Protein backbone atom coordinates (compact mmCIF):
# COMPACT_ATOMS: atom_id res chain seq x y z
CA UNK A 1 0.00 0.00 0.00
CA UNK A 2 2.80 2.33 0.95
CA UNK A 3 4.57 1.49 -2.29
CA UNK A 4 1.45 2.22 -4.31
CA UNK A 5 1.08 5.57 -2.54
CA UNK A 6 4.65 6.54 -3.36
CA UNK A 7 4.18 5.45 -6.97
CA UNK A 8 1.06 7.59 -7.20
CA UNK A 9 2.93 10.52 -5.73
CA UNK A 10 5.77 10.09 -8.20
CA UNK A 11 3.37 9.84 -11.12
CA UNK A 12 1.51 12.91 -9.94
CA UNK A 13 4.81 14.76 -9.53
CA UNK A 14 5.89 13.80 -13.04
CA UNK A 15 2.60 14.92 -14.51
CA UNK A 16 2.81 18.27 -12.75
CA UNK A 17 6.45 18.58 -13.70
CA UNK A 18 5.73 17.89 -17.36
CA UNK A 19 2.92 20.40 -17.50
CA UNK A 20 5.15 22.95 -15.85
CA UNK A 21 8.07 22.14 -18.15
CA UNK A 22 5.87 22.47 -21.24
CA UNK A 23 4.91 25.97 -20.25
CA UNK A 24 8.45 27.10 -19.45
CA UNK A 25 10.37 25.43 -22.23
CA UNK A 26 10.74 27.87 -25.14
CA UNK A 27 8.47 27.46 -28.08
CA UNK A 28 10.83 27.00 -30.99
CA UNK A 29 9.56 28.57 -34.22
CA UNK A 30 9.02 26.21 -37.15
CA UNK A 31 11.47 26.50 -40.02
CA UNK A 32 10.78 26.45 -43.73
CA UNK A 33 12.67 24.21 -46.13
CA UNK A 34 13.85 20.65 -45.77
CA UNK A 35 14.47 19.32 -42.25
CA UNK A 36 18.06 18.64 -41.23
CA UNK A 37 18.93 15.06 -42.23
CA UNK A 38 20.92 14.67 -39.01
CA UNK A 39 17.88 15.53 -36.93
CA UNK A 40 17.08 18.54 -34.80
CA UNK A 41 18.69 17.16 -31.63
CA UNK A 42 22.02 16.85 -33.40
CA UNK A 43 21.82 20.44 -34.60
CA UNK A 44 20.73 21.76 -31.24
CA UNK A 45 23.84 20.28 -29.69
CA UNK A 46 26.36 20.89 -32.47
CA UNK A 47 25.25 23.97 -34.44
CA UNK A 48 27.99 26.18 -33.09
CA UNK A 49 30.75 23.74 -33.96
CA UNK A 50 29.39 23.13 -37.44
CA UNK A 51 29.22 26.85 -38.12
CA UNK A 52 32.64 27.52 -36.65
CA UNK A 53 34.19 24.88 -38.85
CA UNK A 54 32.60 26.27 -41.98
CA UNK A 55 33.34 29.88 -41.22
CA UNK A 56 37.08 29.15 -41.21
CA UNK A 57 36.81 27.27 -44.49
CA UNK A 58 35.02 30.21 -46.06
CA UNK A 59 36.99 33.12 -44.65
CA UNK A 60 40.44 31.56 -44.76
CA UNK A 61 40.30 29.25 -47.75
CA UNK A 62 37.57 30.87 -49.82
CA UNK A 63 35.44 27.71 -49.86
CA UNK A 64 31.89 28.99 -50.12
CA UNK A 65 30.34 25.69 -51.12
CA UNK A 66 29.86 24.53 -47.54
CA UNK A 67 26.91 22.62 -46.13
CA UNK A 68 26.20 25.10 -43.35
CA UNK A 69 26.18 28.85 -43.74
CA UNK A 70 24.68 31.52 -41.57
CA UNK A 71 22.82 32.98 -44.54
CA UNK A 72 21.27 29.55 -45.00
CA UNK A 73 20.31 29.32 -41.32
CA UNK A 74 18.59 32.70 -41.24
CA UNK A 75 16.75 31.96 -44.47
CA UNK A 76 15.06 28.72 -43.35
CA UNK A 77 14.68 29.87 -39.76
CA UNK A 78 13.25 33.29 -40.51
CA UNK A 79 10.40 34.31 -38.23
CA UNK A 80 7.90 36.75 -39.66
CA UNK A 81 6.71 39.64 -37.56
CA UNK A 82 3.26 41.20 -37.48
CA UNK A 83 4.04 43.12 -40.67
CA UNK A 84 4.77 39.88 -42.54
CA UNK A 85 8.46 40.73 -42.86
CA UNK A 86 11.20 38.64 -41.23
CA UNK A 87 12.14 40.00 -37.82
CA UNK A 88 15.74 40.93 -37.05
CA UNK A 89 17.89 39.74 -34.16
CA UNK A 90 16.61 42.70 -32.14
CA UNK A 91 13.23 41.01 -31.76
CA UNK A 92 12.65 38.54 -28.92
CA UNK A 93 10.83 36.30 -31.39
CA UNK A 94 13.97 35.84 -33.46
CA UNK A 95 14.71 32.13 -33.95
CA UNK A 96 18.14 32.11 -32.28
CA UNK A 97 17.02 34.30 -29.43
CA UNK A 98 14.16 32.03 -28.38
CA UNK A 99 16.62 29.46 -26.99
CA UNK A 100 19.58 31.73 -26.35
CA UNK A 101 17.55 34.07 -24.18
CA UNK A 102 16.16 31.04 -22.35
CA UNK A 103 19.61 29.68 -21.46
CA UNK A 104 21.17 33.16 -21.15
CA UNK A 105 23.90 32.55 -23.71
CA UNK A 106 24.89 35.62 -25.69
CA UNK A 107 25.64 35.24 -29.39
CA UNK A 108 27.78 37.67 -31.32
CA UNK A 109 27.08 36.47 -34.86
CA UNK A 110 24.69 39.27 -35.68
CA UNK A 111 26.99 42.09 -34.65
CA UNK A 112 28.55 41.58 -38.07
CA UNK A 113 26.21 39.26 -39.99
CA UNK A 114 22.85 40.33 -41.25
CA UNK A 115 20.13 38.52 -39.32
CA UNK A 116 17.41 38.54 -41.97
CA UNK A 117 17.33 36.39 -45.13
CA UNK A 118 19.30 37.77 -48.07
CA UNK A 119 17.07 39.58 -50.52
CA UNK A 120 16.60 37.97 -53.88
CA UNK A 121 18.60 40.51 -55.81
CA UNK A 122 21.76 40.28 -57.84
CA UNK A 123 23.84 40.27 -54.71
CA UNK A 124 22.35 37.06 -53.33
CA UNK A 125 22.72 35.14 -56.57
CA UNK A 126 25.94 33.74 -55.17
CA UNK A 127 23.87 31.52 -52.90
CA UNK A 128 22.44 29.44 -55.67
CA UNK A 129 23.18 27.80 -58.96
CA UNK A 130 21.91 29.33 -62.16
CA UNK A 131 19.72 26.35 -63.09
CA UNK A 132 17.83 26.35 -59.80
CA UNK A 133 16.80 30.01 -59.96
CA UNK A 134 13.11 29.24 -60.44
CA UNK A 135 13.02 26.59 -57.70
CA UNK A 136 14.70 28.89 -55.24
CA UNK A 137 12.36 31.73 -56.07
CA UNK A 138 9.38 29.43 -55.57
CA UNK A 139 10.71 28.21 -52.26
CA UNK A 140 11.40 31.76 -51.18
CA UNK A 141 7.87 32.90 -52.00
CA UNK A 142 6.55 29.81 -50.23
CA UNK A 143 8.62 30.73 -47.21
CA UNK A 144 7.24 34.25 -47.21
CA UNK A 145 3.66 33.03 -47.22
CA UNK A 146 4.17 30.74 -44.21
Amino acid at each position, binding site marked *: MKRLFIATLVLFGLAVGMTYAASVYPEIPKAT*GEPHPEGNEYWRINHMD*LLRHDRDLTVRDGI*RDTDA*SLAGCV*TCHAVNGSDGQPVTFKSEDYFCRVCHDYVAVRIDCFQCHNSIPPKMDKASLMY*KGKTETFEVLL*AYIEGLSK
Partner: protein
Amino acid sequence: MNIPDLKLKGAEIHRRDVLKGGAALATITLAPGVTLMAMGNGVAAAANPGVRWGLLIDAGKCPSDCSACVTACSDEHGWENNGLPTDPQWIRKVTLRDKETGYENTLPVMCQHCENPPCVDVCPTGASFKREDGIVLVDRHTCIGCRYCMMACPFKARSFLAESITDQKPYSPRGKGTVEGCNMCVHKLDRGDGTTACVEACKATGYNAMIFGDMNDPESDISKALASYPSIELRADLGLNLGVRYQNI
Protein backbone atom coordinates in the same frame (compact mmCIF):
# COMPACT_ATOMS: atom_id res chain seq x y z
CA MET B 1 45.48 27.33 -41.92
CA ASN B 2 44.93 24.04 -40.15
CA ILE B 3 41.40 23.58 -39.00
CA PRO B 4 41.17 21.52 -35.82
CA ASP B 5 39.60 18.14 -36.32
CA LEU B 6 36.16 18.31 -34.83
CA LYS B 7 35.05 15.16 -33.06
CA LEU B 8 31.65 15.08 -34.61
CA LYS B 9 29.65 12.42 -36.35
CA GLY B 10 27.16 12.59 -39.17
CA ALA B 11 27.18 15.95 -40.81
CA GLU B 12 30.85 16.44 -40.18
CA ILE B 13 31.96 13.32 -42.02
CA HIS B 14 29.44 14.09 -44.66
CA ARG B 15 30.84 17.58 -45.11
CA ARG B 16 34.36 16.28 -45.48
CA ASP B 17 33.14 13.89 -48.13
CA VAL B 18 31.46 16.70 -49.97
CA LEU B 19 34.67 18.70 -49.96
CA LYS B 20 36.72 15.73 -51.14
CA GLY B 21 34.19 14.47 -53.64
CA GLY B 22 33.60 17.85 -55.22
CA ALA B 23 30.65 18.90 -57.29
CA ALA B 24 29.05 15.53 -58.05
CA LEU B 25 28.42 14.49 -54.46
CA ALA B 26 27.45 18.03 -53.50
CA THR B 27 24.69 17.97 -56.08
CA ILE B 28 23.30 14.69 -54.72
CA THR B 29 23.19 16.00 -51.19
CA LEU B 30 21.52 19.24 -52.21
CA ALA B 31 18.06 19.47 -50.74
CA PRO B 32 15.50 21.15 -52.97
CA GLY B 33 14.24 24.63 -52.30
CA VAL B 34 15.60 27.18 -49.91
CA THR B 35 18.41 25.00 -48.64
CA LEU B 36 20.11 25.50 -51.99
CA MET B 37 20.79 29.06 -51.04
CA ALA B 38 22.93 27.83 -48.19
CA MET B 39 24.87 25.41 -50.26
CA GLY B 40 25.86 27.30 -53.36
CA ASN B 41 25.90 25.77 -56.81
CA GLY B 42 28.01 22.72 -56.06
CA VAL B 43 31.23 24.15 -57.45
CA ALA B 44 33.93 24.54 -54.84
CA ALA B 45 35.65 27.87 -55.44
CA ALA B 46 38.65 28.02 -53.16
CA ALA B 47 41.55 30.42 -52.90
CA ASN B 48 43.96 29.11 -55.50
CA PRO B 49 47.62 29.22 -54.44
CA GLY B 50 48.68 29.47 -58.09
CA VAL B 51 46.91 32.81 -58.47
CA ARG B 52 48.09 36.25 -57.41
CA TRP B 53 45.27 38.71 -57.81
CA GLY B 54 46.46 42.18 -58.63
CA LEU B 55 45.41 45.63 -59.75
CA LEU B 56 47.07 48.01 -62.14
CA ILE B 57 45.98 51.63 -61.83
CA ASP B 58 46.86 54.20 -64.46
CA ALA B 59 46.88 57.54 -62.64
CA GLY B 60 47.17 59.30 -66.00
CA LYS B 61 43.67 58.11 -66.90
CA CYS B 62 42.16 58.89 -63.50
CA PRO B 63 40.45 62.33 -63.57
CA SER B 64 40.44 64.36 -60.39
CA ASP B 65 36.66 64.87 -60.40
CA CYS B 66 35.81 61.16 -60.65
CA SER B 67 35.32 58.92 -57.64
CA ALA B 68 33.27 56.17 -59.23
CA CYS B 69 35.50 53.46 -57.74
CA VAL B 70 35.02 54.80 -54.22
CA THR B 71 31.24 55.01 -54.63
CA ALA B 72 31.09 51.53 -56.14
CA CYS B 73 33.07 50.04 -53.24
CA SER B 74 30.91 51.84 -50.72
CA ASP B 75 27.75 50.54 -52.39
CA GLU B 76 29.07 47.02 -52.80
CA HIS B 77 30.18 46.57 -49.21
CA GLY B 78 27.80 48.94 -47.48
CA TRP B 79 30.29 51.27 -45.80
CA GLU B 80 29.73 54.97 -45.56
CA ASN B 81 32.25 57.75 -45.22
CA ASN B 82 30.87 61.11 -44.15
CA GLY B 83 34.24 62.81 -43.91
CA LEU B 84 34.94 62.17 -40.24
CA PRO B 85 38.49 60.97 -39.57
CA THR B 86 37.10 57.86 -37.87
CA ASP B 87 34.76 56.91 -40.71
CA PRO B 88 35.55 53.74 -42.64
CA GLN B 89 37.42 54.10 -45.92
CA TRP B 90 38.19 50.95 -47.82
CA ILE B 91 39.32 52.98 -50.82
CA ARG B 92 39.98 56.70 -51.17
CA LYS B 93 41.09 59.20 -53.77
CA VAL B 94 44.48 60.74 -53.05
CA THR B 95 45.78 63.90 -54.73
CA LEU B 96 49.49 64.15 -55.54
CA ARG B 97 51.03 67.56 -56.23
CA ASP B 98 54.42 68.26 -57.68
CA LYS B 99 55.76 71.10 -55.51
CA GLU B 100 58.07 72.36 -58.27
CA THR B 101 55.63 72.52 -61.12
CA GLY B 102 52.26 72.52 -59.38
CA TYR B 103 51.16 69.53 -61.48
CA GLU B 104 48.44 67.54 -59.73
CA ASN B 105 47.09 64.11 -60.37
CA THR B 106 44.79 61.87 -58.40
CA LEU B 107 44.68 58.15 -57.84
CA PRO B 108 42.67 55.68 -55.79
CA VAL B 109 44.50 54.07 -52.87
CA MET B 110 43.29 50.97 -51.07
CA CYS B 111 44.82 47.93 -49.42
CA GLN B 112 47.84 47.13 -51.58
CA HIS B 113 47.65 43.39 -50.82
CA CYS B 114 51.35 43.03 -50.04
CA GLU B 115 53.14 39.76 -50.51
CA ASN B 116 54.81 40.45 -47.14
CA PRO B 117 52.08 42.34 -45.29
CA PRO B 118 53.16 44.24 -42.16
CA CYS B 119 49.57 44.06 -40.86
CA VAL B 120 49.85 40.27 -40.75
CA ASP B 121 53.21 40.48 -38.97
CA VAL B 122 51.88 42.60 -36.14
CA CYS B 123 48.46 41.03 -35.60
CA PRO B 124 48.43 39.49 -32.11
CA THR B 125 45.54 37.10 -32.79
CA GLY B 126 46.17 35.95 -36.35
CA ALA B 127 43.05 37.74 -37.53
CA SER B 128 44.97 39.64 -40.19
CA PHE B 129 46.01 37.07 -42.75
CA LYS B 130 46.92 36.54 -46.37
CA ARG B 131 44.88 34.15 -48.46
CA GLU B 132 46.55 31.63 -50.75
CA ASP B 133 45.72 33.80 -53.76
CA GLY B 134 47.47 36.85 -52.31
CA ILE B 135 44.46 38.71 -50.90
CA VAL B 136 45.08 40.22 -47.47
CA LEU B 137 42.02 40.02 -45.23
CA VAL B 138 40.79 40.52 -41.70
CA ASP B 139 39.09 37.52 -40.09
CA ARG B 140 36.60 39.41 -37.94
CA HIS B 141 35.90 36.27 -35.96
CA THR B 142 39.30 36.61 -34.33
CA CYS B 143 39.88 40.37 -34.63
CA ILE B 144 39.93 42.02 -31.20
CA GLY B 145 40.01 45.55 -32.58
CA CYS B 146 43.47 46.44 -31.24
CA ARG B 147 44.28 48.40 -34.41
CA TYR B 148 47.95 47.35 -34.54
CA CYS B 149 47.47 46.57 -38.21
CA MET B 150 46.23 50.11 -38.86
CA MET B 151 49.43 51.43 -37.30
CA ALA B 152 51.61 49.01 -39.24
CA CYS B 153 50.08 49.65 -42.65
CA PRO B 154 52.24 52.09 -44.67
CA PHE B 155 49.25 52.97 -46.86
CA LYS B 156 46.62 53.82 -44.25
CA ALA B 157 44.48 51.24 -45.94
CA ARG B 158 42.57 49.92 -42.97
CA SER B 159 39.91 51.53 -40.84
CA PHE B 160 38.20 50.71 -37.59
CA LEU B 161 34.48 50.42 -37.28
CA ALA B 162 33.56 52.30 -34.13
CA GLU B 163 29.77 52.21 -34.27
CA SER B 164 27.14 49.50 -34.31
CA ILE B 165 25.67 48.93 -37.73
CA THR B 166 22.75 46.92 -39.06
CA ASP B 167 21.59 45.74 -42.46
CA GLN B 168 24.99 44.57 -43.61
CA LYS B 169 25.38 42.98 -47.01
CA PRO B 170 25.06 39.20 -46.58
CA TYR B 171 28.28 38.63 -48.53
CA SER B 172 30.22 41.35 -46.71
CA PRO B 173 29.68 41.11 -42.94
CA ARG B 174 31.00 44.06 -40.93
CA GLY B 175 30.66 44.91 -37.29
CA LYS B 176 31.58 47.28 -34.51
CA GLY B 177 34.94 46.77 -32.85
CA THR B 178 36.74 45.21 -35.77
CA VAL B 179 39.18 46.50 -38.36
CA GLU B 180 38.28 46.39 -42.02
CA GLY B 181 39.70 47.23 -45.40
CA CYS B 182 39.63 46.40 -49.09
CA ASN B 183 39.06 42.67 -49.55
CA MET B 184 39.42 42.72 -53.35
CA CYS B 185 35.77 41.70 -53.48
CA VAL B 186 36.55 38.10 -52.45
CA HIS B 187 32.87 37.23 -52.65
CA LYS B 188 32.91 38.11 -56.34
CA LEU B 189 36.18 36.31 -57.00
CA ASP B 190 35.01 33.18 -55.15
CA ARG B 191 31.92 32.97 -57.29
CA GLY B 192 34.05 33.33 -60.40
CA ASP B 193 33.33 36.90 -61.49
CA GLY B 194 37.05 37.57 -61.89
CA THR B 195 36.60 41.29 -61.27
CA THR B 196 35.98 43.79 -58.50
CA ALA B 197 33.33 46.45 -57.92
CA CYS B 198 35.79 49.35 -58.32
CA VAL B 199 37.22 48.05 -61.59
CA GLU B 200 33.74 47.49 -63.01
CA ALA B 201 32.74 51.04 -62.03
CA CYS B 202 35.92 52.44 -63.59
CA LYS B 203 35.17 50.58 -66.81
CA ALA B 204 31.60 51.87 -66.79
CA THR B 205 32.83 55.50 -66.69
CA GLY B 206 34.87 54.85 -69.80
CA TYR B 207 38.16 56.03 -68.25
CA ASN B 208 39.46 52.46 -67.96
CA ALA B 209 42.10 53.46 -65.44
CA MET B 210 42.06 50.13 -63.59
CA ILE B 211 42.96 46.64 -64.74
CA PHE B 212 42.30 43.64 -62.52
CA GLY B 213 43.60 40.14 -62.99
CA ASP B 214 45.91 37.29 -62.14
CA MET B 215 49.50 38.55 -62.12
CA ASN B 216 50.79 34.97 -62.23
CA ASP B 217 49.05 34.28 -65.52
CA PRO B 218 51.23 35.61 -68.36
CA GLU B 219 48.21 35.71 -70.68
CA SER B 220 46.07 37.95 -68.42
CA ASP B 221 45.45 41.59 -69.36
CA ILE B 222 47.22 42.82 -66.24
CA SER B 223 50.36 40.74 -66.87
CA LYS B 224 50.54 41.93 -70.45
CA ALA B 225 50.10 45.57 -69.42
CA LEU B 226 52.72 45.21 -66.67
CA ALA B 227 55.15 43.69 -69.15
CA SER B 228 54.60 46.38 -71.78
CA TYR B 229 54.56 49.63 -69.79
CA PRO B 230 56.52 50.96 -66.82
CA SER B 231 54.75 50.77 -63.48
CA ILE B 232 55.71 51.37 -59.88
CA GLU B 233 54.78 50.19 -56.41
CA LEU B 234 54.02 52.74 -53.72
CA ARG B 235 56.83 52.78 -51.17
CA ALA B 236 58.86 50.28 -53.15
CA ASP B 237 61.67 50.92 -50.65
CA LEU B 238 59.82 48.79 -48.10
CA GLY B 239 60.20 45.69 -50.26
CA LEU B 240 56.65 44.49 -49.63
CA ASN B 241 55.95 43.37 -53.21
CA LEU B 242 52.52 44.88 -53.62
CA GLY B 243 49.54 43.44 -55.42
CA VAL B 244 48.50 46.93 -56.55
CA ARG B 245 50.72 48.78 -58.99
CA TYR B 246 50.50 52.27 -60.48
CA GLN B 247 51.40 53.93 -63.75
CA ASN B 248 52.02 57.59 -64.58
CA ILE B 249 52.62 58.95 -61.09
